[in-house]
């Protein structure tokens, strides 16, 4: 399970970093640095809370094991 972000929506509110403190950091401009690793199944509740809390609706959960499809053209 991975957290994915729509960068065109993210405004750097930073709630995700507050709600997932061990996983999401903020860069020097206040934008989230998302973890590379998958979340544990037990963390689904916390991840969903962060997704719901984002004022810009920029986050979503990708529940599949391999979150990004294999390299494809645009």
């Amino acid at each position, binding site marked *: 399970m991975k957290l994915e972000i*729509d*960068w*065109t*929506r*993210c*405004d*750097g509110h930073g709630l995700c970093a507050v709600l997932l403190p061990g996983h999401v950091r903020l*860069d*020097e*401009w*206040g*934008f989230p*640095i998302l973890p590379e690793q998958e979340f544990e199944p037990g963390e689904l509740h916390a991840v969903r809370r962060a997704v719901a809390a984002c004022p810009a609706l920029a986050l979503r959960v990708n529940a599949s094991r391999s979150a*990004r*499809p294999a390299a*494809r*053209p*645009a």
Partner: protein
Amino acid sequence: MTAVLPRLHGDTDTWTIGAPRLLAGLATAPVLDHRAHVTVHGQLPPTGLEHLLALLDAARLTGRGGAGFPLAAKLRGLVGRRPTVVVNGSESEPASFKDRVLLRRTPHLVLDGAIAVGDSVGARRVVVAVHDPQAAAAVRAAVAQRRDAGRVRVEIIDGGFVAGEARALVRALAGGPALPPGRHQHLTEQGVLVANAETFAQTAVLLRLGARRFAETGTTNEPGTALLTIGGAVDRPGVVEVPLGTPLGIVLQAAGAVDPHAIVAGGYHGSWLAPRADVLVSRAGLAAAGATLGAGVLYVVDGYTCALGELARVAGWLADESAGQCGPCRFGLPALAADVDALYRGDTSGLSRAVRHAGAVEGRGACKHPDGAARFVTSGLHLLREEIERHAHGGCGRPVMGRLPIGGAR
């Protein structure tokens, strides 16, 4: 920082190493109308999807827009009964001119390929998307000369650097903003196939030659030719057709490179590299040298100009071209440009900041603009480390001549 703008050509020279394919007929004619096109290239044989895929597989034809994705794979991934084929002739890369040469001067070759591909997949329409009004006029005139171009439309799209990105282009064609979307959706899954203008022209050459003859030049893994845009400190700038795998030294010699100190390869999402004669001009050859063929740009930076200043100038342009949609890019690229500027002014603390900022923007945006910009800047800073030292100790004593173009009409 003073800069001298490069001389702007009305007409770009074209020349070749070896026999021309894409540029055939252009040495003596400014533009090929349909009759001249058929005289030079011959009739286009009919084809179907199976045959086309077999040819593309055998010729290992990769895209010529920069990403180098195999056209056959795009065709196979295309869904829908009545897809759309888009010829990407936007050529937003300031240093590149090859697509405009094709569209302005030998548009029928591009149309041959695009219409053949469109027919093979039952396309509802074929759209030729351009920024350049001259290219639009030339393609429209060519369409009027043909009987098979009923489903071809030419669209002029506004927009800057990122507007040429395939997904941004498709949005603009649909009446939306010329901006890459925030969600990662594959165009082929939406029934849209976008490929570079040169890719379609290469397909037309392949259809006529067949795979075996197509592969008589080039390398085993990269058969055929590629179009390069050669510029900067050279006596013979222009759009040049070369067999893939030609050594860089041969290309630079033929172009009359003047005192090459550094090469910008691929474009402004490409890399700086040392002008080693033995680097092969192919996707694999440039990758082995830590660079990229990209959109076929090869610009020579000489010893008369301040290379660090050239890098700073393009870094500033890359920051200006951010669509501004995504925080890391919108803030990170100007920060990166400021870091390069600091190095130009002799402040070496800019180096660690530049490395940090370049690393911070990668993969954190809707498109690959921040990644490409980071790559361009970090490869430049690596190659120019002695220059950085010189600037830290008082400067290099050279003006910024503007060898690397950053916009303006051609």
